């Protein structure tokens, strides 16, 4: 388990080191830069400093996971991701500030079709209801085999692979994870529709909708497997990997499609971006805009509907205390 955790964090560290490459050429540390800027000394220095900091943090974290005594492994496994995220975030922010004076404002005229024809969702949108079938099937399976459910069963495992929390055979204990999955799925359904109707000017919204749908189905599969696992008794790594096999090819295809050359940047005003990550523009009706770093969308935090979605997510997370055993 110790080795698996170390390899996992090494992989995450390598991905974090690659961040400057996982974005458009005309963006560096969320700063829109002139053509050819990436070949300048300033750009190379910024990338090198970022990579050194993230690489050092990764080495530190992996070493800690390999070397700490057994009784400190769980605590170390909880702290290590935070250290990696903090080192990456701080280093990214510092390079963003350093390159900010080199920023250029990308310009492009927006175009709109003057039509009142309905804005139709992609034809496969009814897949959004598949989770209802998955959760329903899992619930029926549990109900039909109630007597075979142990009086007490594990629901959480530590970094050492050993169970560290159990639930009794009760309505909350057995159906709680499924109920949480239903709530999560409901919130994700709202996100799916918001993604489609709240990002009308982005040229990649079909790709985004497809990717979000894949994540939606993956979460439903994950939570229905988790819920039914009291009877299925699959090893935790199977449950973790099963959805990944569904989602990874779709995510890779999505990123490849979105990184295709020739798509001009969304000319959102530079002054509306905070640290290149948070978009706040009260004069823009969009709920979602293209991210300045990486691929995909981010919220327009000036839109009140976005806050509605976030409050909904907070509600789902808060409900874990009520519905999970």
């Amino acid at each position, binding site marked *: 388990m110790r080795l698996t955790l170390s390899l996992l964090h090494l992989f995450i560290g390598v991905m974090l080191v690659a961040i400057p490459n996982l974005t458009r050429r005309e963006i560096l540390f969320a700063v829109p830069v002139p053509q050819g800027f990436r070949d300048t000394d300033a750009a190379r220095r910024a990338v090198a400093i970022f990579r050194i900091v993230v690489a050092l943090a990764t080495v530190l974290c992996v070493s800690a996971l390999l070397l700490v005594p057994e009784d400190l492994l769980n605590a170390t496994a909880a702290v290590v991701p935070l250290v990696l995220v903090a080192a990456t975030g701080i280093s990214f922010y510092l390079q963003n500030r350093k390159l900010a004076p080199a920023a250029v404002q990308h310009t492009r*005229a*927006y175009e*709109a*079709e*003057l039509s009142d024809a309905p804005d139709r969702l992609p034809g496969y949108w009814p897949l959004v209801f598949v989770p209802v079938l998955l959760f329903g099937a899992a619930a029926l399976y549990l109900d039909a085999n109630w007597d075979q459910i142990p009086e007490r069963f594990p629901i959480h495992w530590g970094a050492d692979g050993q169970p560290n929390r159990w639930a009794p055979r009760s309505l909350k204990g057995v159906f709680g994870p499924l109920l949480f999955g239903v709530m999560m799925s409901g919130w994700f359904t709202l996100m799916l529709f918001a993604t489609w109707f709240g990002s009308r*000017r982005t040229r990649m919204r079909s790709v985004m909708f497809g990717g979000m749908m894949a994540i939606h189905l993956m979460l439903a599969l994950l939570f229905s497997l988790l819920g039914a696992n009291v009877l299925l008794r699959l090893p935790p790594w199977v449950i973790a990997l099963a959805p990944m096999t569904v989602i990874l090819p779709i995510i890779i295809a999505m990123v490849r499609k979105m990184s295709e050359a020739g798509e001009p940047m969304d000319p959102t005003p530079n002054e509306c971006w905070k640290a290149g990550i948070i978009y706040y523009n009260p004069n*823009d*009706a969009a709920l979602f805009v293209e991210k300045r770093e990486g691929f995909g969308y981010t919220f327009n935090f000036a839109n009140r509907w976005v806050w509605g979605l976030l409050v909904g997510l907070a509600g789902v997370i808060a409900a874990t205390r009520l519905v999970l055993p």
Partner: protein
Amino acid sequence: MAPPRIKFDPSSLVPAVRQIEDSLRILLVDGQLAPGTSLPSVRRLAMELGVHFNTVAEAYRLLASEGWLELAHGKPAVVMPRSVPPTPDASWAEEFRERLRGLAAQLRSKGIPADQIAAELRAVAEGISR
């Protein structure tokens, strides 16, 4: 036939309301937006153009006040049949001249000859069908 399109340039110094209003008026005067045509909702057009809802709503209101559009709560804006109005009093000319003067000065400052500006203006005025 594909529905007409309008453009909005966020980097332009021309205010957003004016850009949208002018683009729509060109299509209305030119007959590309025929009477009875429904326009997209304020929310939809604002999202596509990257502006606030009020900006599109104001552009629609201005065109409605000129008799081009009919606005009703909860319904799409509809293009109205509109005959050519009688020429208004002479005050229009002063405002029009002032706007043209600014545009002409802008083009002259970029080195475009006066006769070319005049020719372009004539071509545009005659190109609009109504």
